[in-house]
């Protein structure tokens, strides 16, 4: 797990935004898996002419669990079209593509210089499965967010106004699932989908309830997460994902959250104007305007790249719509009392007006939000594109001329619907280090990640300095995980295990007595089989919560 070897990276150009180090040539020393002030003896790597970043942190991705594994089964044609990975003496074989197999997921993330990932959607009922997959995902450290916004026992408590008990219930579920944070997906909408309906208006009661509205669910969960002092704020997938005109819902949701911390997931999918598919346009400017003045919020881009992928979300009603639009395959799993999930393979096409707008919106948000500490690079993998395509986005962000070239490929009609052509901002390496590592680490509440300060985890990516950002970020020269050199000269030399990050928020133990009878009534599993045992987590790293207020 932790390297006991000593290591010195000599003479690299270091970008460590969390310590304010911006491209300074200096040594980075490692001892016992941590960054050290100095080290005597041990191996020295000559990093002259190279750029040293803290290891990447992905704040929102879907790499493990029942939904992703369902998708794997649905798209054998995608597996065959994409890259196959033969086993080596150090690595296992597997499949790349839109839904890489677990081992390949770890190798591919490490192959981009990423060392920590947050699996953003885990049902409690199948948390055991998610953790089994994460055990088989090497190199990276892993955290998970548990799906709570359509949990029917919680909705009952909101309906009855029993908010204190709701807090204990949420805390109990986080620990039962061995999760790190709380995810809210289309609050109320997935519960409504169990009747084939959706929740489109924030203040209308959810189907099957009289008082519980999406707004109440969002506010209650945000209060609970803040009250429990979880390191990561509520991880929110707003209502009306993907729908033209949904920016009003997004703005309304952000207004609800004044006074709370919140992370707005894949904001790209929530920043559209227009009334229908024919009039859809970008409203990223309005979203960014609001966002820029509200420091309680963070977001990830959820950017889209053109090409084949598969969309996977707990947002069941949206996936039914997407199935009706595409007429292609449709997978759906409703999870009793908790959530749902939909899987639809999808192709983003340059010549398609809607897709062109989506592509632009993701980039616009990254360029229009002033503070890189609050907006992070993601593609909502695999929804917008597979994570291994991040270097393409980095190039688009760093090179305005290249963006202009790409804009020429879009339909002329799209250009009047977007603001991207007017944006000339270019990201610096310092800013790229923020949106890929330092920022998401801060949002996740992981002070030892995303930084190279003394005492931090020795998770480091070393790139060849190059004008070609795509090539530079596609093939890190060295990747170091917990002090071990896992990638050298672009090759995996060693595969190490990652940690499982989790929290144990405080709750009243007597909540068991409340949950047990409800559970026996509504579920089909024995209550005692529901919580995941701590022994099931490989290398658990229990992160502290702040003192509850």
């Amino acid at each position, binding site marked *: 797990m932790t390297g006991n070897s000593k290591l010195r990276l000599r003479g690299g150009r270091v970008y460590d935004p969390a310590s304010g180090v911006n491209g300074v040539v200096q040594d980075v020393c490692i001892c016992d898996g941590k960054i050290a002030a100095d080290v005597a003896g041990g191996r020295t790597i000559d990093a002259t002419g190279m750029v040293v970043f803290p290891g990447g942190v992905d704040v929102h991705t879907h790499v493990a669990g029942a939904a992703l594994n369902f998708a794997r089964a649905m798209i054998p044609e995608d597996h065959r079209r994409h890259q196959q990975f*033969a086993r080596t003496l150090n690595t296992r074989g597997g499949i790349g593509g839109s839904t890489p*197999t677990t081992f390949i997921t770890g190798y*591919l993330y490490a192959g981009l210089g990423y060392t920590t990932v947050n699996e953003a959607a885990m049902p409690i009922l199948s948390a055991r499965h998610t953790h089994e997959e994460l055990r088989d995902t090497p190199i990276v450290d892993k955290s998970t967010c548990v799906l709570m916004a359509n949990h029917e026992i919680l909705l009952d408590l909101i309906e009855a106004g029993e908010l204190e008990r709701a807090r204990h219930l949420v805390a109990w579920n986080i620990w039962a699932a061995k999760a790190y944070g709380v995810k809210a997906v289309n609050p109320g909408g997935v519960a409504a989908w169990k009747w084939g309906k959706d929740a489109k208006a924030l203040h209308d009661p959810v189907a099957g309830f009289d008082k519980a509205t999406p707004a109440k669910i969002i506010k209650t969960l945000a209060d609970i997460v803040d009250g429990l002092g979880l390191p990561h704020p509520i991880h929110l997938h707003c209502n009306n994902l993907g729908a033209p005109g949904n920016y009003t819902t997004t703005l309304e949701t952000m207004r609800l959250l004044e006074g709370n911390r919140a992370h707005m997931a894949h904001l790209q999918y929530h920043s559209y104007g227009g009334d229908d598919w024919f009039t859809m346009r970008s409203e990223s400017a309005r979203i960014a305007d609001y966002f820029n003045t509200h420091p309680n919020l963070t977001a990830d881009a959820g950017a889209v790249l053109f090409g084949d992928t598969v969309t996977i979300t707990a947002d069941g009603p949206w996936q039914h719509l997407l199935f009706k639009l595409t007429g292609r395959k449709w997978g759906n799993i409703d999870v009793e009392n908790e959530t749902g999930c939909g899987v639809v393979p999808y192709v983003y096409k340059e010549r398609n007006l809607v897709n062109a707008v989506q592509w632009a919106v993701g980039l616009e948000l990254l360029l229009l939000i002033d503070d890189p500490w609050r907006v992070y690079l993601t593609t909502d993998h695999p929804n917008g594109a597979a994570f291994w395509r991040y270097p393409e986005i980095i190039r688009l962000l760093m090179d305005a001329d290249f963006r202009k070239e790409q804009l020429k490929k879009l339909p002329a009609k799209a250009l009047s619907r977007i603001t991207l052509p007017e944006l000339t901002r270019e990201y610096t390496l310092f800013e790229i280090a923020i949106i890929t590592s330092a920022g998401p680490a801060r949002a996740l509440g992981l002070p030892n990640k995303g930084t190279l300060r003394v005492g931090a985890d020795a998770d480091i990516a070393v790139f060849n300095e190059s004008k070609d950002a795509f090539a530079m970020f596609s093939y890190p020269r060295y990747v170091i995980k917990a002090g071990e050199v896992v990638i050298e000269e672009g090759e995996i030399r060693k595969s190490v295990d990652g940690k499982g990050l989790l929290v144990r928020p405080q709750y009243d133990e007597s909540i068991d007595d409340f949950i047990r009878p409800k559970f026996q009534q509504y579920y089909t599993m024995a209550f005692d089989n529901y919580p995941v045992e701590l022994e099931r987590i490989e290398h658990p790293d229990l992160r502290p919560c702040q003192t509850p207020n």
Partner: protein
Amino acid sequence: MGGKVTCTLGEVKNRADLIVYWGGNPAECHPRHFTKYALMPKGRFVPNGRKDRTMVLVDIRETPSAKAADIFLQVRPGKDFELITVLRAMIKDQPVDAALAADTGLSMEQIREFVDLMKKARFGVFFFGMGLSMTRGKHMNSAALLTLAAELNAFTKFVAMPMRGHGNVTGGDVIMRWTTGYPFGVNLARGYPRFNPGEFSTIDLLLRGDADAALVLGADPGATMPQPCIDHMARIPTIVLDPKVTHTSRIARVHITTAVTGISAPGTAYRMDEIPLPLRPPLKSPYPTDEEVVRRIYEAVRKKPPLPVHAMPKLAAV
């Protein structure tokens, strides 16, 4: 069309008011299915249990499950695909040739009533068994029924689920998918997974005599596979890990007795709806677990000089 519109069993328990079993005999093959999940339990939105639900059985003969059904529809053998196609047309109010409909063995009136029942259900579910998936048409039958379930969602809530059995076969599927990307029929001979049912499935490999050794775990193919497959297993070194003597162990070169999973060995089993359940063994066994044996074989194999493998392709190519 492809994919699957499904749910976990608790959704059926809490919501389903129309239960359709198709080509299966749960009364005898999944005896707890009625009482635990599908028919009898009182659910959150079906508070009166059985009284709130309608059960339809579609099969070629009147099995003991028919006694539990409100409506039994006897389809002519081999005509499941045709019946499903007629249903798909009729739910969309498209014209159907009466002769084609009659060919399914059901009257137009029966079919119309069934369509009505499905469209009026609040939450409908198809549970389909090997009588559908392993008879003439095979996977095309399953695909047709899954498509019908998906299309019914234009009118109401509808899902479908295969009635899987044979112990933890679902768990095998699930793990194959996360490690190789494919559920079964995977060939790893090139160092990476290739999938081709009909070429790389166990029966095909044994039938062609491609396999020069076999490791059999938690299964008894000697009892169920075609005779030429069994003959080939007897020819090659076959190793069986099983707590008891089986048809396969009798023809195997080596039989290692292992602890019974769930009784004296821990682990995880996946339900037919892919929900994992922990297994807590109440007893101890003098025998090693399957996992322990496989691990020891693996460690011994690892000590041998490695076979040449292909070079790792470059990472992160687009």
